[in-house]
């Protein structure tokens, strides 16, 4: 009876959502703001990928806030789990030699792929967050595949701090040249080239390194809590 009532309620809500959204013309070029962005993005910012130019150029301050939120989450997790070890009876099985060899062979390829994604952020889909996540996945395969692997936390925090400083300095330089915070100060170049779109590649490289270092640190901290003393 209860399940029947829930199904009935879901059908009711679904029907009214359908009738509400059936008349909305999705995907048509009728919205004024979207049309304006699509027309003026390439001459104004020099980036071919409109999504990237909106995320980094028009709303760059928002991206800085997102990176800060991720940094706070990683720091809080490290503070809670600091020094926590697994129980000694948690025996760990070693990975097979095929997995170890595969992890060592695939790690450089995955890191190269992540670097490709965030360097070409203004040309192809993707950007700093996606590239950083792919680099963290590369660290994950090392953790899974190599016996008693531990990431170098000092190196990770230095990388993360340098990337964050680069982002903020790129914003302050806009103020120093008499413009707004995070406004473009570099020449735009030809749209479609790698070295174009002004400040976007620099910010995306910084975001990529920062996100990759943070997520790798999170994974290593979490993984060290399930491993017993060896």
């Amino acid at each position, binding site marked *: 009876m209860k399940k029947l009532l829930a199904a009935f309620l879901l059908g009711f809500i679904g029907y009214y959502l359908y009738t509400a959204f059936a008349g909305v013309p999705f995907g048509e070029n009728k919205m004024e703001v979207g049309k304006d962005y699509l027309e003026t993005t390439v001459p104004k910012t020099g980036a071919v990928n409109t999504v990237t130019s909106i995320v980094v150029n028009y709303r760059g301050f928002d991206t800085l806030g997102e990176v800060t939120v991720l940094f706070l989450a990683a720091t809080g997790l490290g503070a809670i789990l600091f020094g926590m070890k697994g129980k000694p009876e948690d025996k760990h099985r070693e990975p*097979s030699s*095929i997995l170890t060899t595969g992890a060592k*062979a*695939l790690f450089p*390829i995955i890191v190269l792929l992540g670097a490709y994604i965030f360097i070409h952020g203004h040309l192809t889909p993707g950007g700093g967050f996606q590239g950083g996540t792919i680099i963290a996945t590369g660290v994950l395969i090392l953790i899974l595949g190599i016996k008693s692997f531990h990431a170098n936390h000092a190196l990770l925090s230095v990388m993360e701090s340098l990337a964050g400083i680069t982002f903020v300095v790129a914003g302050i330089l806009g103020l120093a040249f008499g413009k707004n915070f995070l406004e473009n100060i570099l020449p735009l170049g030809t749209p479609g080239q790698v070295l174009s779109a002004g400040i976007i590649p620099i910010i995306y490289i910084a975001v990529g390194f920062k996100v990759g270092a943070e997520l790798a640190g999170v994974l290593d901290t979490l993984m060290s809590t399930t491993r017993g003393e060896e």
Partner: protein
Amino acid sequence: MNIMTIIGMLLTSLGALFLLLGAIGIVRMPDMYTRMQAGTKATTLGAMSFILGIGFMEPAWLIKTILIVVFIALSNPISSHALARAAHRSGIFPLSRENIDLYKKDNQEDKS
């Protein structure tokens, strides 16, 4: 329609056929290890052939599709191997009449 397009259509058709056969094998086989046989080898060959065929149909994409094929050939066997080993270690044994399971002996020596 030139020769590259025809080669591409043949390769994609072959790939789709192998993907379909692999999927049928997953449902029809009696045992987990034989299912894995169908579900990893046939689908790996199918996907490699399919994506190479797409590269032949659009010759400007050929380098990137060959890159995808190389990645599939590198990464897919590792996951199949890890899965088979994990299944054996979590206590699932093959259905066989003669009871030949050499990996079991290896595993017991490994444990001690």
